[in-house]
């Protein structure tokens, strides 16, 4: 590979990593608080992209879609948590199974409403061009994705450490039951957390749409599969883990695809295997995934 190509792929990898952070942070947040791995996270991501598609078709505004889709997904999450998950509070595995059912329903309904063809969403005006960087032209939108991911991570970091909401989240991740005993309404806290996770998935769906397309199957790849890999590698339930996992998996996957093409996912497999064997908590996690 020429140095220019390496540079370009490094940028691609980092912008994919930034997207993975937006995607995985929601999964990690919900897990941290509720001990539930939301297997409908990929379906939420997909739904976010399709809602964005409709908003852009109706109004022509990508920026409006960027607001509407996360809001719609947040609302869905806020309804689904009390409707389904709350009934099985404490039975974490069964709650995870419920999210499998939710995922089946959402993906099929998307197919029924929006059709089962490959669709596309173009980048908004102003970000649809390219700039000249070392050794070649590079799409501006990918740089925007990178900046957006970094900004979101920074914002989330500030919310975590400096605000009352962040304090509640940190306390809930430590011990949600104790938080309830101290008078916090955990029902509302859990519903809000699940809603926030869904909204982040929806946000990732909108941001990803112009780069990775809008199509059947996106709920699994990249949706659910990559967000799981990121949280396993980075560590479950911590913000820094989601950052570390994304920054590692994004570039690794991108270079894997360039170098090994047909068997690129073997690279991800190797990383997951290595992390599990050497650091069963993930790089920066607290929870042991394996003994």
């Amino acid at each position, binding site marked *: 590979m020429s140095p220019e190509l390496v540079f370009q792929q490094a940028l691609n990898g980092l912008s994919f990593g930034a997207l993975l952070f937006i995607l995985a942070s929601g999964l990690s947040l919900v897990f941290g608080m509720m001990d539930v791995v939301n297997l409908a996270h990929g379906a939420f991501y997909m739904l976010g992209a399709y809602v964005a598609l409709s908003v852009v078709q109706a109004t022509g505004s990508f920026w409006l879609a960027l607001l509407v889709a996360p809001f719609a997904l947040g609302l869905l999450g806020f309804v689904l948590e009390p409707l*389904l998950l709350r009934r099985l509070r404490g039975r*974490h595995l069964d709650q995870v199974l419920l999210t*499998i059912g939710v995922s089946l329903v959402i993906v*099929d309904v998307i197919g*029924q409403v929006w059709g089962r063809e490959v669709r596309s969403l173009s980048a908004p005006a102003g970000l649809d061009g390219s700039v000249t960087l070392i050794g070649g032209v590079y799409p501006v939108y990918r740089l925007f994705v990178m900046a957006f991911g970094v900004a979101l991570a920074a914002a989330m970091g500030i919310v975590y450490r400096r605000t009352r909401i962040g304090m509640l989240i940190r306390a809930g991740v430590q011990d949600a039951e104790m938080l309830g005993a101290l008078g916090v309404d955990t029902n509302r806290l859990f519903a809000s957390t699940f809603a926030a996770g869904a909204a982040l998935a929806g946000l990732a769906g909108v941001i990803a749409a112009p780069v990775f397309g809008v199509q059947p199957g996106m709920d699994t790849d990249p949706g659910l599969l990559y967000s799981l890999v990121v949280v396993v590698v980075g560590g479950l339930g911590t913000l820094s883990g989601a950052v570390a996992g994304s920054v590692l998996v994004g570039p690794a996957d991108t270079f894997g695809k360039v170098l090994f093409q*047909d068997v690129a996912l073997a690279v991800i497999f190797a990383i997951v295997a290595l992390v599990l*064997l050497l650091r069963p908590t993930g790089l920066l996690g607290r929870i042991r*995934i*394996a*003994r």
Partner: protein
Amino acid sequence: MLVALGAAALVTFPYWSAPWASRFATTLLRDALILAIFALSLDLLVGRAGMPSLGHAAFFGGGAYAAGIAGQQLATDQLPVTLGAAALVGAVLALVIGVLVVRSEGIFFLMLTLALAQIVFAIAFQWTAVTGGSNGLSGIGRPMLASIDFSSPDLMYVLVAVTFVLAALVVWGLARSPYGRALIGVRENERRMRALGYDTARLRLSAFVIAGTIAGIAGALSAYSTRFVSAQDAGLGNSVRAFVTVLVGGAGTLGGPIVGSAVVSLIERVVPSILPTDLRISEALLGLVFIGFVLFARQGMAGLGRSAWLRVSRR
């Protein structure tokens, strides 16, 4: 005795049902039996050993590809070779993934099996030179045993039904054996089992490999039935399908996975033929049924049947 009669009736279904049942019934039952073999193998993990795997399709798909590719590369249609290849690939894949996942439990086990199995899917989907990639693998050979050709619909059914009976006997035998008891022990209290001197990691791994082997054979039967292997056979959708089948039927019961495969086949194949053709919502329906069972009848159809029986017999 009753089981033997039932098995004989099942295996000869196309021959005695001919006057009143259609070809569709034989095909439907064949596919339901393949799903039942697949689900029985998964239940060994989910129901017995308490290992909720969401990656079982990797072994099903691996077996399907192995049977197809072995037939083409080795230029043989002999079932002992192709089914053997399917079983071997199922076992080896299960060993590789199993080594990594048996150290995890519960939700983590589920996440890891899902993620690692999806890599098998991705390789099947991308490695076009070997697997046909997104086009799938066609040109599956004929299933031959010596000089008998099983590719006619009726004989294909018989092959599937016989394999189903054998697989059910193996799984039931394992479940009742000391080995099966030990697996249940691992599910209920792994620490105590370790204290009793069992190598629980090895127990879990061996269950994973046995289940993978049987799933591989189910995959090969699917490849022969449809004369085609799709990457989706190894995909998450198929893993979810097996999992839903086990839970709807009743995990950890002898008949549950079989009842479950009947319910799932009904939803997948019969319901769409009633609904208007532009309404393709069988997956959503399956999802709703699954949610209903998880919320209200976690023990599945088998559990519902058992409590109904208790209510009746108590009167």
